């Protein structure tokens, strides 16, 4: 990969979590580590089988690299009473991502729909996406917050990868099944030592996926949720969740599909040099909806409602699919342990029969 000019990013232990970091050698991988996750909780744990990829997703996703949290849009320079705008001439980094899960591939697909396939194309995201190689690793150890099976996004990667591995540990053997998803993947594989997979290895790989599927307990009823949310804007449950929500925006930061950004303008002390930066933003921030007479969404209730309704309902109107891939990050990284599957279930269970119209006069 180095020779091809790609920086390899894969699972590393960093800040007490497993998240993408530079991989130079096999020792950089989190061998013998896993994660234990629950609402508002993420803990690293030891495991005894020496697995290299035996964990569920951590806080970072491909979004951190393809849709970076801070990036300069342009530089402007003032000269002779006017100014000129200079483009960013930096080339997008070329990266190979190792250990990408099926839910993350689905999330990148969701971001593609927003940032490439809609009316406008984000050049920053497009270049980074085009300059990426994806080596997926099929998930063997979903955590208790995962619900990819409810969203139809996992646990096995079906498309969108160059290579997909399944780590198979059985008794004394530690093997990987490799599946090729693209010409680039085939090319990569050709440069390595490998042997044709046995029927048994294929069967064991399928068994890894079947075990992962069985271990997923969390359920989310996706059917009908788009309509449910639109018809329940004034449901008392919004007040209930608002009493727990800190409006910190953690869920939007770790969400692999949340794409909202703001821009910041700045200049140096001489005023001759100005820059415009794009940064991640969150619909939980009070200033997010600011217009000249104040913020439109003042209450935490309205901000949580906006986030959940956009993610699970408006996203269908805008992009023809849900904005949720079932990765569970928003549950694990919520400091208050708010669980969107539980919130939607509560809205569904107690949907007021009488008052369901959000737009009544």
């Amino acid at each position, binding site marked *: 990969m180095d020779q091809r000019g790609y920086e390899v990013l894969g699972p590393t232990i960093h800040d007490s979590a497993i998240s993408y970091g530079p991989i130079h050698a096999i020792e950089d991988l989190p061998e013998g580590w896993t994660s234990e996750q629950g609402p508002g909780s993420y803990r690293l744990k030891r495991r005894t089988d020496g697995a290299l990829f035996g964990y569920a997703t951590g806080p970072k996703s491909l979004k951190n690299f393809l849709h970076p949290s801070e990036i300069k*849009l*342009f530089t*402007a320079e*003032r000269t002779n*009473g*006017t*100014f*000129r*705008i200079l*483009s960013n001439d930096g080339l997008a980094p070329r990266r190979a991502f190792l250990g990408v899960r099926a839910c993350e591939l689905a999330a990148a697909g969701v971001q593609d729909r*927003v*940032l490439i396939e*809609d*009316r*406008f*194309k*984000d*050049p920053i995201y497009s270049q980074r996406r085009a300059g990426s190689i994806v080596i997926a690793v099929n998930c063997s150890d979903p955590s208790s917050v995962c619900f990819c099976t409810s969203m139809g996004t996992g646990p096995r990667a079906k498309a969108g990868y160059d290579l997909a591995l399944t780590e198979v540990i059985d008794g004394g053997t530690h093997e990987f099944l490799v599946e090729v998803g693209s010409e680039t993947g085939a090319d990569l594989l050709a440069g390595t030592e490998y042997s044709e997979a046995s029927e048994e290895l294929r069967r064991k790989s399928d068994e890894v996926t079947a075990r992962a599927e069985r271990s997923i307990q969390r359920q989310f009823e996706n059917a009908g949720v788009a309509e449910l949310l*639109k018809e329940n*804007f*004034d449901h008392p449950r919004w007040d209930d969740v608002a009493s727990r929500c800190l409006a910190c925006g953690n869920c939007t930061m770790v969400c692999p599909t949340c*794409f*909202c*950004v*703001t*821009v910041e*303008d*700045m*200049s140096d002390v001489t*005023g001759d040099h*100005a820059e*415009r930066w*794009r940064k991640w*933003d969150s*619909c939980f921030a009070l200033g*997010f*909806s*600011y*217009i*000249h*007479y104040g913020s*439109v*969404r*003042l*209450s935490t*209730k*309205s901000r949580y409602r*906006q986030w959940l309704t*956009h993610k699970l*309902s*408006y996203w269908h*109107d*805008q992009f023809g699919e849900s904005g949720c891939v079932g990765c569970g990050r928003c549950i694990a990284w919520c400091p208050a342990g708010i669980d969107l599957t539980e919130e939607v279930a509560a809205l569904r269970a107690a949907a007021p029969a009488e008052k369901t*119209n*959000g*737009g*009544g*006069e």
Partner: protein
Amino acid sequence: MTVIAEPELLDSTALADPFRPQLARIASVTRETSDTVTISTELPATGSLPQFVPGQFSMLYAYGAGEVPISISGDPGNPDRLDYTIRSVGAVTTALITRKVGDYVAMRGPFGTSWPMEAAAGEDVLLVAGGIGLAPLRPVIYHILRHRSEYGRLVILYGARSPKELLFRKELSGWSKSPDTQVLTTVDYGEPSWRGYVGVVTKLFNFVSLRPERTITMMCGPEIMMRFGIRGLQGRKFPDDRIYLSMERNMKCAVGFCGHCQMGPYFICKDGPVFTYGQMRHWMGDLREL
């Protein structure tokens, strides 16, 4: 008939880098009120100005200060200039209105949907504006007066806080003398010399006679004004799909990436800013904070 066609919406093929603005020179500056200025911009000799249709907006960048969405308020029949009427409400708008002739701003756009000039052809047209909301409707007035025979009656109802805050005062009186055109203005607070109406703009519905089935309404102003305007029109049996609104939300990008302008299922920047009330009905009821 020379009605304005639907805009050719900008897309990624037209905008290799949708974040990069182009420079425009300020050719004239007109002070409208104590806090509102119209700047008329032209491109440097080499560039050709982008065409716009009434209702569209641009993102205007004041060097070092930032960028804001501003509706185009000029004449769509004059392709050499893009006019912006800007009220100072924050750091960027203040920077923009203190620019002088010969200074440069930068812009991206025009973006967004147009007022229904095609649907309005042959119909009566009711314009309802509050405050700075008259600016995005001015291109409609210019267009109708330029193509007078293609439209029916033109009724302009305009409300401002006080007489001093009425925009385009000379033009208002000129428009009122145009054929088959009625202009009524009202203010929230009069002053001794004011002889016009006092009260919210929706009160003016009482002083005009309109044919609901033959009228296209275009409304722009604070959201609360539009909510009351809609109620007034509904009470007079105006069909929801013949009422058009220009909506406002925070905007950082104008191309659907920043997420700030979402209102219900819409991105105001690329699905709007002009919508029919039929499209907006569900999101403009009694609920707030959407």
